[in-house]
């Protein structure tokens, strides 16, 4: 009885998550990541699996399923794929317990049989999930700890759109040094005002400008600090629309760019083809065209993509919650976080 209810619990969670993704009922990828982690926790707690191989299979299938539900969101599948690696590692540690050579490389030639049943594997995986969950919660704070290192006194910082991580970062920096912030509002959502209000409350002098004015103001900016939606496998970004242009301008004016990203944003996906296409989302262009002009735009195609691809050359430094790295180092982080499939 208890088993059945546990099983149905995770199935229900999975269905709910899928529906939210399909309908676009989510705001931040942080929320998606936490929900996915809870789902995985419920699965591991249930009795639906016997050995590590079944867990990994389920994780992979669920990751595929959630990606199909919303192609542009990578946070759920990132979390699940990370768990695959964690399960493998836990399995190997358990198996090699007591043996002298405990360093077993996961990419070694010998095929590992994951279908071996290990008794304590469940508690191990649950522990790992707990660690990951606390990492998720404290992501913004641990990134903000680096704020003092990078932001000096009297600097003018530019940021794009609204990012919770950047907000925490700037507030932390403002406790130590006086700084000013320019917030750039980018379409299609133009979400800068809330961030401006929040920063002003923390006694940071804020200016809110449109993305059209970014070029004019760039010469006065000392650094750019932005958040991103996803960090791609080549070190590039999938960030909000408008970022690529603004970062191009930053390169033109030689302004360093810091990207703050929590670990669940690191994705093993590459941008497709030479044209660097990314999985994008298109929303209603109601900001651009009034509904009352509807009959005039019968023959007009209107596009409002949400994301932008930013090539790795435009980023100076990534700050993850596990440390700061250059874009060229991302491949190593990927290797440590995800398994080679």
């Amino acid at each position: 009885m208890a088993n059945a209810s546990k099983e149905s619990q995770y199935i229900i969670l999975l269905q709910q998550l899928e529906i939210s993704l399909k309908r676009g009922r989510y705001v931040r990828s942080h929320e998606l990541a936490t929900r996915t982690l809870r789902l995985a926790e419920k699965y591991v707690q249930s009795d639906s699996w016997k050995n590590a191989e079944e867990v990994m299979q389920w994780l992979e299938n669920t990751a595929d399923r959630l990606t199909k539900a919303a192609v542009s969101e990578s946070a759920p599948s990132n979390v699940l794929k990370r768990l695959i690696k964690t399960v493998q590692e836990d399995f190997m540690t358990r198996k090699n317990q007591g043996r002298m050579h405990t360093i077993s490389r996961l990419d070694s030639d010998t095929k590992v049989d994951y279908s071996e049943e290990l008794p304590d594997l469940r508690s191990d995986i649950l522990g790992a999930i707990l660690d990951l969950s606390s990492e998720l919660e404290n992501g913004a704070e641990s990134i903000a700890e680096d704020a003092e290192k990078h932001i000096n006194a009297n600097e003018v910082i530019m940021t794009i759109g609204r990012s919770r991580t950047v907000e925490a970062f700037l507030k932390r920096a403002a406790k130590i040094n006086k700084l000013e912030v320019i917030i750039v509002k980018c379409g299609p959502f133009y979400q800068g005002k809330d961030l401006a209000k929040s920063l002003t409350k923390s006694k940071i002098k804020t200016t809110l400008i449109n993305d059209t004015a970014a070029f004019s103001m760039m010469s006065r900016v000392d650094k750019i600090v932005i958040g991103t939606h996803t960090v791609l496998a080549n070190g590039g970004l999938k960030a909000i629309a408008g970022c690529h242009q603004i970062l191009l301008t930053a390169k033109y004016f030689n302004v360093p760019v810091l990207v703050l990203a929590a670990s669940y944003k690191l994705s093993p996906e590459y941008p497709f083809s030479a044209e660097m296409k990314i999985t994008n989302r298109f929303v209603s262009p109601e900001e651009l065209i009034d509904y009352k002009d509807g009959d005039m735009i019968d023959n007009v195609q209107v596009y409002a993509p949400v994301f932008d691809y930013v090539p790795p050359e435009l980023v100076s430094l990534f700050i993850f919650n596990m440390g700061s790295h250059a874009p060229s180092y991302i491949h190593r982080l990927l290797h440590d976080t995800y398994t080679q499939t």
Partner: protein
Amino acid sequence: MLSESKKSGSPPRPPPSEDISRDDVRAQREAKKLAKAARKNKSFKGKLANPPTSTSENEHPVVPYPAQKSLKTGTTSRALEVKPAEANPSSQSVSIGVSADLLKSDSSSPSVIHSLFKPKKGKELAQSNVSKLYPPFYNVGLKVRNNVIRGANSQCVKLLDAIKDYVRCYDVPPGTTFKHGLFADLEGNMENLKTVCSFSISMSNAVQFLLFYLHNMPDDDGKVIDFKNEILDVIDQYIVEKIEKAVEAIVLYGLEKINEGDKIMVYSITEALMSLLVKAAEDGISYELILIQTRETKVELADVLEKLKKPTSDQTVRVSAVNFSSALYKIRSCSKLLMGGHGLFTNGGVMAQSGSGQLALVADTYNKPVVFLCETFKFCDRSPLDFLPLEEYMPEQFQTEDDFLEPKLIYDVTPSNLVTVVITDIDMLPSNGLAATLRVQEGSTPAKL
């Protein structure tokens, strides 16, 4: 010294007996805290202006460690000095805290960015002057200010029409000649009008031209009616030559640049650009148009579509619109970027709608030609390196109650190295060749604005 800090509302001091018995380190820490609180509560000036005369009220006769922060700007020493509290109040005792405290959160020092947008002295709206303004001018001014008359060319034409009206109805005041009287009155009116609405470059140049012409008119007595007719003719000629014919010339040159099957990205729509697009469609050239949209240009999109109604409906011209933030999404598939200019400068910079600099950079990065269309009468004898000198053309910046600034930047300057060519009514020129060309053509240095 310490009581001074106490006055400013710092945490309360313990009674003296406990104080004396405290450790060195603990007293230091306490003093540091007080100094920090004192700094937070008082501004620099306040502290300097408020000499520590309150030591007479010092309730703690023997406190071994000083807490007063050094007020002399420039002192950066970090040494700790031991001074008794009743020591002379004007002694500049040295700060315990780090001298970088000078830079710490001090809400009274101005923001670098906010001070860029502060209205300059002497530019305040003089309400009383509006009453001295000739009513048709005020009319035009309000329409320009509220964006009812859109587009630099139409604004200029409407202003010149109002000036013609003024000249027709002008009565020479006693004691001056027609020329001097009209010059002074017209200049006064224009100054007053500038307080109602911000002049665009086209308007400023037109007024400048007229005043220059007036200044050079012969001084001798003649019939007032002859003078008036002369001026009206000059204004008409200006409108026809510099504005209407110029647009036609630009369209002729521009047609060479629009080819069959082209994909053109368009921003900063002016009359010249609009006429070019319409003419190209009328000539049967089938091209694709990608309009870059921002929230401010919603109305212009409606205009464009209205004018291009027939070509779009029979698919000669295929139009798509993209948000400014996603211009990069489309730039690769475009063949060129076409923009209308509001002004040209001596250093080759082009003034256009805010965002053109950004788009020019994007197009340049992907190796697409950046073409500006600008009439020569919009040439301005300045060399701005960025948007700040253009403040006089932009409306007042108001600060919202929430204490963050949201400036409205309408124009910006595209540097000349990002511009491929500027199509003007005299020729197609590289942007930095304009000054030389104009000088040769007009044979004189243009009037400085």
